[in-house]
């Protein structure tokens, strides 16, 4: 047990030096690290949002809304298909999660079924089969035809929506100019956003919470909005929308879209040249510009509405045909609102509504305080353990402490290499590791004490101590490792950080407190050949 082959010694020493080298960048100011050549270790531990300040947000996609809008599209497709084959029908609508329609004449049912069936396309199948599958299921019972969307199609649609949403969320966050935001998918229908070092999370929330579906529509001239509300009837093809700003005024707006927000090429905040009010300047792409020009030429004198997420931002009158491809939105904005709207329009609309399910924001002040408190606690805790160990085991205690210092440095080194995230509970994990890491040494030393009391000489006593303690050390550490693994699997954010430091701390502590410590003692034994040991 005390004899080490040469290559093992070399390996152990190398591992220790690697640990030291990789932990070193953490003790150097960040600015100086940039001068370190690339082949040297130059990574610092990644601090979690709770230590450096920042916002964590879990966004949920409105999957029900997504499915519903798919069904609404399907209603339109079915209507067009039946119109094309000239089949009369009644009761076309959404019912119980599918589109149903009743064909008026029984002899038309087959023709209608085939026409609707032709609407189906294929989507890539599920993970198991991998085969392409149809996206629609058409079922005729009597004169009624039910059309439902297959699970594979729903899944494919969700996939696409999540992908696209991530892209748009990324564009919006990039506009904030923060460093290293993390945007990733979580589960089936969620997006995790982590933005470090944000002074004002309010703007982030405003940017993330909006779908930003914008379009330009004509205000109906069939009747006034007040009339429509009073008579509780809305002319066909119109709807009542309210203004975004208080007092909320109703507008009777045509459902038909003049130009959609997807036709915008650019948007930027600016000021109106006459009034000095903040506005958003925008430009259409060529198709959008042409569409806008045509509609404005035909409707001079009528007001049109600029609609964002079903709210009317402003409703200017068309004084003359607008033929250029640029325009201006003025809606009594503050500068901040104009900036946000420009960002939203530039980055595009989300394919689906998003809500913030969970938000955790830590200000930079608390983060800095936490680091300071954690450092003090770790130093004092370590000092107490050092004093206690040396008082209890004398020279052997010093060796245990040397192993402990090495342990903490290796822990830092591995955290730096893995670029694992250190959180506040993670610091607690390090402090706990400091307390528990000496356990292996305690086990060994107590065992050696027993063997010495039983009358064994130094070398056999130490030999037996290491031998017998090993199984206990392994069992004890594997159980803690199991806990840490489960925490890592189940936990999120800060708690996961705790699991990471705990797990790495266990592994490094077995290495330093058992292997490295054993090497130290074997070297000492060979050098000094003690007649008796004080323990």
């Amino acid at each position, binding site marked *: 047990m005390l004899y080490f082959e040469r290559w093992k010694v070399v390996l152990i020493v190398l591992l220790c030096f690697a640990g030291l080298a990789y932990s070193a960048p953490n003790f150097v100011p960040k600015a100086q690290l940039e001068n370190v050549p690339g082949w040297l270790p130059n990574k610092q531990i990644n601090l979690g949002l709770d230590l450096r300040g920042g916002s964590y947000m879990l966004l949920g996609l409105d999957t029900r809304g997504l499915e519903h809008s798919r069904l609404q599209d399907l209603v339109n497709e079915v209507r067009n298909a039946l119109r094309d084959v000239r089949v009369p029908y009644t009761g076309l609508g959404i019912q119980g999660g599918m589109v149903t329609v009743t064909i008026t004449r029984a002899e038309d049912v087959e023709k209608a079924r085939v026409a609707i069936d032709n609407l189906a396309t294929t989507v890539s199948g599920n993970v198991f089969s991998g085969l392409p599958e149809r996206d629609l299921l058409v079922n005729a019972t009597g004169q009624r035809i039910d059309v439902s969307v297959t699970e594979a199609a729903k899944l494919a649609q969700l996939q696409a929506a999540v992908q696209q949403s991530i892209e748009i969320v990324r564009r919006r966050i990039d506009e904030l100019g923060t460093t290293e935001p993390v945007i990733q998918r979580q589960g089936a229908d969620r997006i995790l956003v982590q933005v470090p070092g944000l002074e004002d999370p309010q703007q982030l929330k405003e940017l993330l919470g909006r779908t930003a579906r914008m379009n330009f529509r004509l205000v109906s001239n069939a009747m006034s909005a007040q009339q429509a509300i009073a008579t509780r009837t809305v002319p066909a093809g119109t709807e009542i929308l309210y203004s975004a700003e208080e007092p909320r005024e109703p507008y009777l707006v045509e459902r038909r879209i003049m130009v959609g927000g997807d036709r915008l090429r650019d948007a930027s905040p600016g000021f109106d040249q006459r009034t000095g009010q903040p506005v958003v300047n925008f430009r259409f792409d060529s198709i959008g510009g042409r569409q806008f020009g045509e509609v404005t030429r035909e409707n001079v004198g009528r007001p049109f509405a600029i609609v964002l997420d079903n709210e009317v931002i402003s409703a200017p009158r068309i004084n003359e045909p607008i033929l250029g491809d640029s325009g201006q939105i003025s809606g009594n904005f503050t500068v901040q609102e104009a900036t946000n709207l420009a960002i939203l329009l530039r980055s595009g609309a989300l394919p689906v509504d998003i809500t913030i399910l969970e938000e955790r924001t830590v200000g930079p002040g608390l983060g800095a305080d936490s680091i300071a408190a954690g450092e003090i606690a770790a130093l004092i805790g370590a000092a107490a353990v050092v004093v206690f160990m040396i008082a209890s085991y004398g020279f052997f205690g010093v060796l245990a402490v040397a192993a402990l210092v090495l342990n903490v440095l290796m822990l830092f080194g591995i955290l730096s290499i893995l670029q694992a995230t250190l959180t506040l509970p993670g610091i607690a994990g390090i402090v706990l590791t400091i307390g528990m890491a000496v356990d292996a040494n305690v086990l060994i030393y107590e065992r050696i004490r027993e063997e010495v009391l039983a009358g064994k000489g130094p070398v056999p006593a130490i030999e037996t101590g290491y031998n017998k303690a090993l199984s206990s050390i392994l069992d004890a550490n594997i*159980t803690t490792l199991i806990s840490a693994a489960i925490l890592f699997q189940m936990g999120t954010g800060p708690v996961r950080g705790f699991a990471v430091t705990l797990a790495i701390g266990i592994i490094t502590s077995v290495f330093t407190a058992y292997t490295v410590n054993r090497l130290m003692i074997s070297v000492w034994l060979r050098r000094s050949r003690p007649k008796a040991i004080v323990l």
Partner: protein
Amino acid sequence: MRLLKLIPDDTHIPFVKWRHIAVSLSVIVVVASAILLFTRGLHFGIDFTGGILIEISTDGPADIAELRRDLGGLGLGEIQIQEFGQADDVLIRVQAPDSEDEAASQRVVDMVKAELGDRAVEYRRVEVVGPQVSGELVQDGILAVVIAVVLMLIYIWFRFEWQFALGSVISLIHDVMATIGVFCILQLEFNLASIAALLTIVGYSMNDTVIVYDRIRENLRKYKKMDLSELLDLSINQTLSRTIMTSGTTLLALAALFIFGGAVLRDFTFAMIFGIFVGTYSSIFVGAPVLLAIGVNRDGSGGAAQTAKESAAGKA
């Protein structure tokens, strides 16, 4: 230099003799904890109930009464306001809005922020947990503790005999229940970090119990004829010094964290400190007596029940 020895070298404390007292005490603690859990209940944090937590710092000592009056006037349901760590640091907890709408919480945050106005010099923390997420966190938390206990059971079963696995899991459940009892009595906030603390306690308690069991197993092989209760006493005494030393160093580190680690970690650290005490107690007073009650397989011939009877007879 004389070395510090917390425990003398050769102790013969008759732990097993005290098992009736210890077991009664443990049963009382576990039952009381269970009763407390169902009557008084845990003080769940927003991780599990959903809701809003805002930590602000104020310019000079905060006027808690005034804040309570002003925020109470918003009609947002139950609002808890407390000083946090120091006089110019305030923690505000707002109940989850009674709504399925996930965006409702965000509107409440805006209302509270508007009411606080200039009084909040800095928003140190804002946490909003919606109903959907909090429900999942509860499930995951319970699942995590259960899986941990089951995996430990399997591991110990694999490494020892089933009697040891049963014994260690009984002491684990004992420790978890006792810790939950303390959470109930002191009404400490039970949140995600508390689950982490519980799992750490599970790991530590297991660690401690395994060390004692390891020695028991070793002694079972060494002293084939020794009476089981005598053997348990011997094993506990032999490992006593280590048990106390390791608990000592761990407690020293945790005490430093408790005192200097800041207000955010205080409940988390407290739970772990308590857990170390219970874990140490249970590895001596729960794990070993359980073995005495169910007996152990001493010669590998499957005579567990018989051994138990013999040793019971030996006592009588």
